[in-house]
């Protein structure tokens, strides 16, 4: 018998099925499109932005939206649209980095705690409770203040506080799955504990963790913007949406567009993540399907 790897065709079919499922959720599809567009904008920022994001021109300061500057200019005459486009990079980098850090850590801690139970569970979950009891923004603030403000510290600071909910969720799922018959069946044919953990329990916890991570992205966007607003996130001249709002605050009444435009960008981004996460839950979890 020849051994042909069978995963690629199966996975492609699954992916296509996933797309058709998504197409049935108009709101989720819209969220997915917005998120995809944001990723593309972030990737191709140098090509898309009409002006360099840090190019100052004091004669053009605080111009209202016009044909030359679609979204107007800020107090240094920098084009707001260009800064928003480059800012998408900062936001996406933050969101993806935090997710990439938090997902595996939370999943590993939660699944281990839930699967092994007993003392391991107690230790890991008490540690999780300790972190969970910190207000995340305050901890992030303290961390960013201690380590020096910057994008890197902001990412670490947000990650520090974002993993406990994931761990909790993964633990709850693992608790259910570890008692499933097929896990005992695997024990019957002699699989070791680690094999059970990684091959039998963890894959079943993945869907809900993915959904939670997607929903989390909205929170991360907001937290990152808050840190930026307080001057503890990405530092100028890096265009960061939160910092842009903070700068535009002074001109709120007369030059509303300076603060409003980044605000709208933040709103759209976090809304898109939320809606996409909701749709993912409906698709990945058959118990939630609407009729």
């Amino acid at each position, binding site marked *: *018998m020849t*051994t042909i790897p*069978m995963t690629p065709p*199966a996975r492609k079919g699954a992916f296509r099925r996933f797309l058709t499922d998504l197409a049935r959720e108009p709101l989720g599809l819209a969220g997915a499109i917005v998120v995809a567009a944001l990723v593309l904008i972030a990737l191709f920022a140098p090509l898309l932005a009409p002006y360099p994001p840090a190019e100052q021109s004091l004669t053009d300061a605080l111009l209202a939206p016009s044909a030359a500057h679609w979204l107007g200019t800020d107090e240094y005459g920098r084009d707001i649209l260009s800064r928003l486009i480059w800012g998408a990079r900062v936001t996406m980098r933050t969101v993806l980095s935090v997710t990439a850090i938090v997902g595996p850590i939370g999943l590993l801690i939660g699944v281990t705690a839930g699967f092994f139970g007993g003392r391991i569970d107690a230790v890991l979950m008490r540690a999780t409770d300790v972190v969970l009891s910190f207000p995340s923004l305050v901890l992030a603030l303290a961390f960013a203040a201690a380590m020096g403000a910057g994008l890197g510290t902001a990412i670490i600071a947000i990650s520090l506080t974002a993993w406990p909910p994931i761990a909790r969720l993964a633990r709850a799922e693992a608790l259910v799955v570890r008692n*499933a*018959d*097929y896990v*005992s*069946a*695997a*024990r*019957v*044919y*002699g*699989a*070791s504990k680690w*094999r059970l953990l990684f*091959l*039998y329990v963890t*894959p*079943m916890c993945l869907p809900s963790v993915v959904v939670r991570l997607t929903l989390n992205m909205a929170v991360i966007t907001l937290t990152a913007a808050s840190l930026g607003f307080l001057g503890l996130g990405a530092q100028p001249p890096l265009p960061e949406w939160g910092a842009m709002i903070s700068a535009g605050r002074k001109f709120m009444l007369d030059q509303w567009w300076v603060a409003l435009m980044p605000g709208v960008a933040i709103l759209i981004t976090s809304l898109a993540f939320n809606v996409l996460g909701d749709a993912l839950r409906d698709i990945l979890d058959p118990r939630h399907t609407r009729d």
Partner: protein
Amino acid sequence: MILDIKNLSVAFGRGALRAVDSVDLQMQGGKIGIVGESGSGKSTLGRAIMRLLPPTARVTADRMAFEGRELLTLPEREMRAMRGNRMALIMQDPRYSLNPVLPIGRQVAETAILHKGLGKAEARDAAAAMLERVRIRDVARVMKAYPHQISGGMGQRVMIAAMLLARPKLVIADEPTSALDVSVRGEVLELLEDLVVADGASLLLISHDIRMVAAFCDRMVIMFKGRVVETLDRLEDAEHPYTRALIAAMPDARHPMHRLRVPDRSTFEEATR
């Protein structure tokens, strides 16, 4: 002696109630059936032999030896090498006992990877050969299918394939047919028997269906409230009122009756005491 159990008891948690109470069981080979109603401790007995009970279970025995090795004191690592390799357990419902995210072929190959030290490609070949042995027609297709894509009867045959791949000496089948459609039950049992006989293994069949066990097994052990009340070779020799009540509760083609008798608990509860 394949299996030699003396005075085995299982209790759960702090409760004094014993799920399995002073059970003796000797097995030289062949097919033995364990019969009893729900909660009579028959499944617990099967799992105690495999040492698969949760940590809250307290298992005690004067002796519980498999192929001459004492199981109760065996380290977990050696026990693991034994499970699936020397002894196997076939569970009730294939819908729940197959990993929903692994393709069938990969799952059957697990035993080959774990116990025979085969590489992935060899293990897949072994799995394909084993699926052929359990009379799955379109092996190549089934290998790629996921558990939810196959029928219950097929699922149970896949389960049997996975459990018997390493040719264990003792096969415990815990209600292997009760989740299946009546029309495929006989087929699955026959298959199980053929494979067990071909491999020279012993079978411990756990069931509540006393007639099925009588037709299928060499000897049957009747359990009630965790105790063995009777050991029989033929149904006709039944003396204990509980055994008789079990027999009377099943329809018999030779003695058709209008209404089956519901067991009168007071009679045999008295006799067990």
